[in-house]
């Protein structure tokens, strides 16, 4: 083997130093522009950060594909629904008139909404695809009020970076960044295909996030918390999904 020359040694050293400081600078810039996901640590952290950063850079305010009415799936698949318990049944018996959505955290006016309150807000609809991480999908019409309307009404503070949302089912909670929270297709959904949203599909209230996989569209939403950091929620990984081994950002 040929001996390593001093020039090679110096060049290699300089390249290594430049590379390391380049990576450190890239990390700082990524953090500053909100390109680092809460589950950025561990063996898969590098891949997750690249994925999240790349998607945030390419998507901007892009809209999930909307489909013609003729493409609505005649037999959508609701997926498994775990038993919801007696309290849910009581609410269901009262046609969900006592269902409450609490909005708290970094908002000027913490508010509790009833479904009637939400129905009185601007009503939008979209025909989009639900895509499960398992591989299956269906297209449905979703009717509700954009999350951004609720955030405007409650006065989300400018330093807000995430909206955490919690299901009636105790272990199911998620969060999205403000790019998705303020996205015009992110709906607090109460209707599906011209009827009320069936319980199997998340009724009475489901947060639809059509630019991400189905598990981010949490069913039976009862609380929204606006925050600037996910550190103090659960294990600090952003949502229940990473705690169960699934990525926080589910854009892919």
């Amino acid at each position: 083997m040929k001996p390593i020359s001093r020039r090679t040694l110096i060049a290699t050293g300089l390249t290594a130093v430049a590379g390391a400081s380049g990576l450190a600078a890239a990390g700082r810039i990524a953090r500053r522009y909100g390109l680092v996901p809460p589950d950025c640590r561990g063996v898969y952290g590098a891949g997750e950060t690249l994925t999240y950063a790349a998607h945030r850079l390419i998507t901007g305010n892009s809209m999930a594909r909307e489909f013609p009415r003729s493409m609505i799936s005649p037999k959508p698949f609701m997926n498994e629904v775990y038993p919801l318990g007696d309290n849910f049944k009581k609410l269901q018996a009262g046609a969900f008139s006592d269902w409450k959505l609490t909005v708290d955290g970094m908002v000027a006016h913490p508010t509790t909404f009833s479904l009637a309150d939400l129905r009185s807000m601007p009503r939008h609809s979209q025909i989009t695809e639900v895509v499960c991480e398992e591989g299956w999908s269906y297209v449905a019409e979703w009717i509700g009020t954009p999350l951004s309307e609720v955030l405007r009404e409650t006065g989300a503070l400018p330093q807000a970076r995430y909206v955490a949302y919690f299901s009636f089912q105790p272990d199911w909670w998620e969060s999205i960044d403000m790019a998705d929270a303020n996205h015009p297709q992110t709906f607090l959904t109460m209707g599906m295909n011209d009827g009320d949203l069936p319980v199997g599909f998340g009724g009475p209230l489901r947060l639809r996030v059509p630019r991400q996989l189905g598990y981010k569209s949490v069913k039976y939403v009862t609380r929204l918390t606006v925050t600037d950091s996910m550190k103090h929620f659960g294990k600090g990984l952003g949502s229940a999904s990473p705690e169960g081994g699934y990525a926080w950002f589910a854009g892919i």
Partner: protein
Amino acid sequence: MEAPRHTLLVRVTHWLTVISFVALLVTGFEIVVSHPRFYWGETGNVNMKPLFTIPIPSSRDTVPTGYSYVMPDQNGWSRYLHFESAWVLVLTGLVYGAVSLLNGHFRRNLFPEPGQRTLGAHLKRIGQYLRRTPPGPEEATSYNALQRTTYLFVIFVMFPLVILTGLALSPSFNSAFPFVVNLLGGRQSARTMHFFLTWALVLFFVVHVVMIAVSGFWRRMRGMTTGRTDPAPELVMKEGV
């Protein structure tokens, strides 16, 4: 001094590709196990008729498979590792592609040479393979017509397509570039194509390894790792005599 069989760039990117490809294959299989049914068009789920079903048990009890048991759920780490490996593959491919364009590796080593650009030249080499004619001395340092065309096809057609059909499964990517998934005929069509392209790459992988085994496995491995190839043993013996 003898020039290396493969440049440092080719050797490093080759092995990074092997590592990420194997990781993608294993994790991809794990992801398929959660829904071993394939469809054509935009949508597909257990309430719809599949194009075909792989006869394996699923890792989800919502999928009717005909088996009475459910496989363990490995999708979490599989999905994390699938996308991390995909990044390694894509970044490796970009570096390899950019440098190979600039330093003439594609032009010199992979683009068929003037006498190799006909169908006849390819058929002739296939015939030689079938008759097991030993390669001529020019093939010790250069690729033949069939190798060049195959490598170019894998690099410029198969890998880009498998990456593109994979991206077309992402609802976020599809919001930014909807024409890709629409051009592929819908998301479930893209998933089915992703599956078959994977098998095509596996076929290439198997043939590639068999050819290497036939032509001297360890010598080829050394060539792709250290860049040096010792002369074939039979040549050494002849020269020794």
